[in-house]
């Protein structure tokens, strides 16, 4: 499911987008063999990148807002509720656990989940620091800042909270 789960909530069959997402994940789980894997490529709800552009709703900052506020805002601006839910790592973990997936691994997909050049294990901060220091090119101010910041204690931890997207591998 690459770039798909966030759109599932737009269906008219469910009033709650989260319920629609759970229903689709349940279908996937049923299709899997025991021990089979589901891969999900999706955005991080608190991605720093959303400061610069619009969310799936077509409006700015909606993913950062509490759901009820995003709902009110989208209804007022677009005439429809906020139904393209994305989550944080913890949010996806809970969603997948609710759908019966026992084991879930998270990766930071760089530069994004569509054409990821790197999949960095979420729990391995050393790997993340290694990527920034060693494998990223030098060109560009953003990269220079990222490289300088990677040396600061706690910076890789902060980066992963604000990273653009996740590659999620869930096992049945």
């Amino acid at each position, binding site marked *: 499911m690459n770039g798909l789960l966030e759109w599932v909530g737009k269906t008219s069959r469910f009033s709650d987008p989260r319920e629609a997402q759970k229903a689709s994940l349940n279908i996937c789980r049923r299709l899997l063999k025991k021990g089979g894997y589901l891969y999900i490529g999706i955005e991080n709800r608190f991605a720093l990148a959303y400061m610069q552009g619009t969310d799936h709703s077509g409006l700015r900052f909606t993913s950062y807002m509490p759901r009820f506020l995003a709902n009110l805002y989208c209804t007022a601006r677009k005439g429809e509720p906020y139904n393209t839910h994305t989550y944080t790592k913890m949010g996806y973990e809970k969603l997948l656990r609710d759908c019966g997936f026992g084991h879930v691994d998270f990766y930071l997909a760089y530069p994004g989940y569509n054409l990821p050049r*790197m999949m960095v*294990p979420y729990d391995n901060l050393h790997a993340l620091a*290694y990527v920034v220091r*060693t494998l990223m090119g030098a*060109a560009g101010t953003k990269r220079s800042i990222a490289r300088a910041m990677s040396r600061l204690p706690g910076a890789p931890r902060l980066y992963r909270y604000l990273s653009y997207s996740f590659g999620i591998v869930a096992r049945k």
Partner: protein
Amino acid sequence: MIHKVTKVIREHPEWLRSKDSVLSFMKVSMPTSGTVFDKGLGKVIIFVFEQGQTTPTICIKTVREYRAREVIRRNYNNLKLLSAGVSGSAFESLFVSPLYLYDDGNDIFCVESVCPGVMLSAQAGGADLVIEKYMLWQAHLAQTASRFLSSQDMMEYVNTSMEALKLPEIATNTLRKYLKRFPMSTNVRLPVLVQHGDMTPDNVLIEGDNICLVDYDYVGVNILAGFDLFNFLSKSSHQRQSLRAACSLYFPRYFESIGATTETYDNLLFIYYLEECNRKWLRGVDTRGDEIIGSFETLMNRK
């Protein structure tokens, strides 16, 4: 695949810093991997981290589809070729160690050690160090060189390079005419030396005074001594002078260090460039004769 990789690693605890380490895997692929240009043939690199370690211990190279297995075989054999050339010498650290090739008919991957260091392209300096080390390595290889290219061999080499471009006859004639502008040495004696083939700033890692060359897909494709140097200078953005000036600075020293005899090397630069064009052509970029000459001139004068 990861299960097979893990099994192979566990069977070889000597590769790890600590044999019971918890392993985590980080996937890295090329920018084109997975795109329409790649057609499933793209290489995928997996760095294996041991828990608590700040650098990876092992590097696994594989391909998305088994039908592209030759990419991995070639990479592994090329690395073995390079390693054999520096075995027991002071240049062993110039390349990683080939550890293992796995092929079960469904999956293929090779296991290599990991180069320490940071990509040259991620640093502000270091180009001079790379050139210095490259020259020393080539001089080391030249000591045992058994084949040499003469002027006649060079002409044949040029013909082969042009044929490989598969240009229309008129374009080939344009290139030949252009090449005649350069004086050709009559007493060329150029040792045939293994070239890395893709010595770009992205493929050079630096740590302290050591460098390490990675990515072995094109090893041995070029036998023309100095191709790597030209390739490096043309891809490097660390030069303040034009490429032509950089070549005049480094090539005389290079030829002297490998014991080559040539009165002039201007023609060689264009031949190196034809080799680069061959590479582009192989990558599906349409190249015409006048474009080649134009881009060569632009490149040589670029700062």
